[in-house]
């Protein structure tokens, strides 16, 4: 039996309890943005988490609808074309308007690793820390040690 989705209030309460350094701004009854620091290794990063509670089933034409989207505010994510793996940025949903603000790809939607029934405070935040840690490793070595996969390219998916 599917677990019921967490309400926005439940998400906000859990974040305030577990990650008090994050500030929440609720723009609408169904949307919240948190902003706060994460320190994966030594240096802190300022990140935002956008989350919109959607109703109904997932829509393939909007793959990012209803999932928490983590973006790095500062220091800006740096593109690197001269790396062995994952150029120019590893495991993000590329945002063509501003690549450095691309949302981090923290879980595989095909594997059911996250649902609105999960607390962001206990999933997304830790996964963002993991991503940032691997990102620093990628910056330092040119290799992505965190594993994962990419969505197939459009032309591959259509063939």
């Amino acid at each position: 039996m599917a677990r019921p989705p967490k309400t926005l209030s439940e998400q906000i309460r859990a974040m305030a309890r577990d990650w008090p350094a994050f500030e929440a701004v609720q723009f609408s009854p169904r949307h919240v943005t948190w902003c706060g620091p994460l320190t994966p290794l030594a240096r802190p990063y300022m990140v935002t988490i956008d989350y919109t509670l959607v109703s109904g089933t997932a829509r393939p034409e909007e793959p990012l609808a209803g999932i928490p989207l983590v973006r790095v505010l500062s220091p800006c994510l740096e593109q690197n074309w001269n790396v062995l793996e994952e150029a120019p940025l590893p495991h993000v949903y590329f945002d063509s308007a501003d690549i450095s603000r691309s949302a981090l790809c923290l879980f595989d939607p095909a594997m059911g690793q996250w649902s609105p029934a999960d607390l962001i405070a206990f999933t997304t935040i830790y996964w963002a820390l993991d991503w940032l840690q691997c990102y620093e490793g990628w910056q330092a070595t040119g290799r992505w040690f965190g594993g994962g996969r990419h969505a197939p390219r459009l032309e591959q998916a259509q063939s």
Partner: protein
Amino acid sequence: MNSRVLRYAPLPQALALAEDLLIRTAIRIELPPSLHELAVRRFEAVRTYIERDGSPLKDRVRIFYPQGSMAIRATIRSRKRSDGYDIDIVAELILDPRLTPAQILDLLFVAINGEPGSRYHGKVKRQSRCVTVEYDDDSRMHLDITPSLLIAHDDPRLSQIFHAKPEEPAHQHRRLIMNSNAFVEHVRAATPIDLEFRQRYAKEAKRYEERFLRIRADADVVPVPSHSTIEGGKSASIVALQLLKSNRNERYRSRKGVRMPPSVMLSRLVIDVARPGSSLLEALARSCQHIIDTLQAAEALGQCVDIRNPRCEHDRFTDRWPEDLRAQRIYIEDLLLLRQQLHVLTNGQLSLPEMRDLLAQMFGEGPAQSAIEDIAELHGLAIQRPAIAAPARISSIAAVPTSARISGGRAPSHSFYGTPWPGRPKR
């Protein structure tokens, strides 16, 4: 149990990462345990060779023993010789004390070099105080064998060694008093047993050796065991000494023809301030400061520092360095820089690439990059396989989350995803 054993206290996150990186860097610059065993076998082989029939030193070797870094397990890659390892050995000989310094050094050279076509012929070099045996294999090892004569039978290993630069006139050749054996005993007695640090260091050293090192020794040596955790176990002070020596080598690498501060002086000063239960960071920072203070105190008096063997007053560790106040000032500046770099390394404001660049400046590019790659890979593995503990694990600036405590500290597993890069930008 030694009463000086203390616990190795947990460090805050930025310090823990810096400590982790320093440990991995130190492991990459030291003589690995299996090469230590190889060195022991090699110096035993050289001793046997010196005493062969027909050798001018047959029945003339009283004892062969490691000295300096080799004896206190602090051997690191040298500044010269393509970054190989210098293994320091004393050959205590039974010879007529009226022989000149040059005669004694030449005798040892002839005994090891042997006839054309013999085992070491052509691989031996006469230095001003020792004879060097080179090995042209992957071990990149050199044995520096210093001949000595025992002075007093009632004071074991109180000896003479000899200085005779071939190009210098004989009146400049000289005899020096030394007791390296007593100094090694002093170091061992004064070095605290940092049990937890020692276990952690040994574990990492073993892992590194098993994973990365493939030593191909020459045929005259029996294959060595891959590792002994006992050989890999060291106190934080000894590892700090390795890092100080590596930093010194790095600073002096480009200073051609300039004599470096001697390792034995650094050993003495590091041991002077060894404390039990230290982290590597603490031991390194404390040692660095003590050396700065010692050199600056001499400088303030307008003098060159004078450091001696605490067990043998005539054994002067600083007889060849510093040559003058300027040489002393150069190293003071180096240590002030190191102190500043340590501060930056631990201030919690550096990314991993920045830490790599800083470590490369401090201890060399190769060890720094390798240590960083190791950390990055281990973190990645810990994410992919949560049963593996990550080094220097991770939290937010915020307090440890309640939910993390309740759940035992692990979020659900996940795997990264993402869209492929849609295309290279137009140039």
